[in-house]
């Protein structure tokens, strides 16, 4: 009996839209999204996870369980980087022991994501996908991610100063639905330009000397708002301009291009790379100091090894540059009130410092 294949993948911010687009265009599988992350997801995930594994593992596992309950039988996981590269095997083992039947595909090969490994993964799904189609849609998806990130960047700078409440979020939702139905490069770019213009026309009330804060840290907690307890939203409500470096287009190609430059920029602190985003974050801290930002927020899941290696160095950089910095470490048990209180205290301090 040949059952219909239903493919699904874990959540990461809004990036489920381009990824779903890619899968529907390339394969003839039915693509379903994992249910949105809620408290229940993380409870399910923590229940079956090892004790002191980092939080993204628990979120991913929770996503998988919920989507398997909804009828998925092929799962996708990215892999690569630090501990993340070993997620797939452990998650597969845990879920199989729980009695689910499925197939797990990984985009990475061994420990890093390369074009070759992605190609092999899609060949595994369907041997008949022609190469030109794969290249066409992969590049289209990458372009879509890039456009999304560009818009996100603009949103982050201005969302704290919107005149009409929630206008940015509504427009973004509209844009994403419009993106997901695009047909090719031309229509995508046309839509992007249209929405870019719309965003620029949204009324904002931004003073010249507003507070500017940079968010640095581990990638999953930076990109998945639920895992950082909607930190960015909180900051926006305090009328702060936000700069965040990590996004998927950064991870996909910018990172590789910038590595040497970054290391040269901070050569008085670091001689070698640390692994994952460690060195990038030291670079960002120095960059934010040089650009005259008012404060830095460093976020990471509890026990994130690369960041633990980087934090003493970042601390030194910030001491030398007299830059206020606050560290948040998220776990499945973190209290939301605690975060809010600390954030408010940090905000007050920045405000007094600015005068």
């Amino acid at each position, binding site marked *: 009996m040949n059952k219909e294949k239903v493919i699904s993948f874990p959540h990461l911010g809004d990036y489920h839209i381009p990824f779903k687009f890619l899968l529907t265009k390339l394969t003839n599988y039915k693509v379903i999204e994992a249910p949105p992350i809620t408290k229940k997801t993380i409870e399910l995930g923590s229940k079956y996870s090892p*004790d002191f594994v*980092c939080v993204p593992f628990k979120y991913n596992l929770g996503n998988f369980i919920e989507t398997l309950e909804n009828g998925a039988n092929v799962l996708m996981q990215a892999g690569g980087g630090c501990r993340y590269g*070993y997620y797939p095997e*452990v998650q597969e083992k*845990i879920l199989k022991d729980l009695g689910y039947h499925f197939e797990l595909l990984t985009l990475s090969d061994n420990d890093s994501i390369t074009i070759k490994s992605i190609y092999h993964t899609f060949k595994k799904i369907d041997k008949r996908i022609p190469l030109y189609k794969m290249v066409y849609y992969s590049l289209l998806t990458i372009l879509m991610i890039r456009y999304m990130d560009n818009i996100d960047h603009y949103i982050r700078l201005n969302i704290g100063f919107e005149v009409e409440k929630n206008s940015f979020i509504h427009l973004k939702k509209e844009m994403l639905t419009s993106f997901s139905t695009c047909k090719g490069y031309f229509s995508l770019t046309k839509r992007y330009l249209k929405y870019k213009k719309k965003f620029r026309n949204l009324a904002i009330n931004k003073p010249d000397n507003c507070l500017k804060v940079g968010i640095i840290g581990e990638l999953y907690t930076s990109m998945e708002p639920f895992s950082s307890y909607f930190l960015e939203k909180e900051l926006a409500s305090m009328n702060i301009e936000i700069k965040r470096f990590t996004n998927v287009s950064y991870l996909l190609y910018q990172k590789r291009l910038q590595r040497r430059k970054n290391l040269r920029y901070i050569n008085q602190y670091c*001689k*070698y790379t640390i*692994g994952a985003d*460690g060195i990038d974050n030291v670079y960002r801290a120095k960059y934010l100091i040089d650009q005259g930002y008012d404060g830095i927020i460093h976020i990471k899941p509890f026990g994130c090894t690369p960041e633990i290696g980087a934090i*003493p160095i970042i601390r030194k950089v910030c001491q030398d540059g007299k830059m206020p910095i606050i560290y948040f470490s998220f776990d499945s048990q973190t209290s939301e009130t605690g975060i809010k209180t600390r954030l408010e205290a940090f905000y007050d301090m920045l405000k007094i410092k600015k005068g």
Partner: protein
Amino acid sequence: MSKIMIGIPKALLYYKYGNLWITFFEELGCEIIVSPNTSKKILEDGIKYSMDEACMAMKIYMGHIYYLIDKCDYILVPRLKCVKKHEKLCTNFSALYDLVSNVFDTNLIHYNIDVDHKEDEFYAFTTMGLSLGFSYRKIVSAYRLAKQKEKLLKEREISKQKVLIASSTKIKILLAGHPYNLHDEFIGKQIEKILEENNIDIIYSDRYDDKYLEEEVKVISKKNYWTFNKEIMAAISHYQDVVDGIILITSFPCGPDSLSNEMILRNVKIPITNLIIDEGNSDTGLLTRIESFIDILEERRKNHE
């Protein structure tokens, strides 16, 4: 000219490469100071100088560095990114050099191994020797000798363990974990002491001949890529037929271990217990857990007879 004084912290990779380093520097004619066994004072200093979320082994390491400052000209802080092709280590090992140089103000020797980028162990030793001002010929001969001695010492330990396994009739427990956890005064030695008091033979996972490593790892995990964790997995699958039980030692919150342990616990067929040690550990709690584990093993043996 007075001799160069080199400090080697007795923590982390010392337990793996210690013999190699000491012989190498002795052959070159340097003076060596190795920090003493971990004491309460060293641990407290380490906690003071490290991040609160760093793993226990790292905290101990920082304590040892603090002890060595002002006692020597250079401190050997290795930076290991990758020691086998297409494999990785915990990122702490690649951050170690920069971390120490930012926290403490002291002279460090450059010792960098990154096989994926064509910097192997021999290259690391030559650059290290040259930076200290020794001739190339002297360095090569010292490295060869050190390598031979390291191999000899390791083989001796392994054969000793083989004899023990063949001759012993007592209950045998495999202590599995990273060498720096197994042999540290505050982590592994505590457990060792309790086991010895209970008249039990101890087998160590780091005394293992890695000839068939790749095949033996596959029993537990097919995709693991951390060199040190693969060694533990291979040792466990190698020894699991000859021992009665396994104690898996982890320092809290070790990154690679958090996932690898899950695979080990789910794939091993004999009794196994996982002891997670951190600086706030109570001795009594440890004692109770180990004793009850031993009771289980004794019962099992009786039933089999």
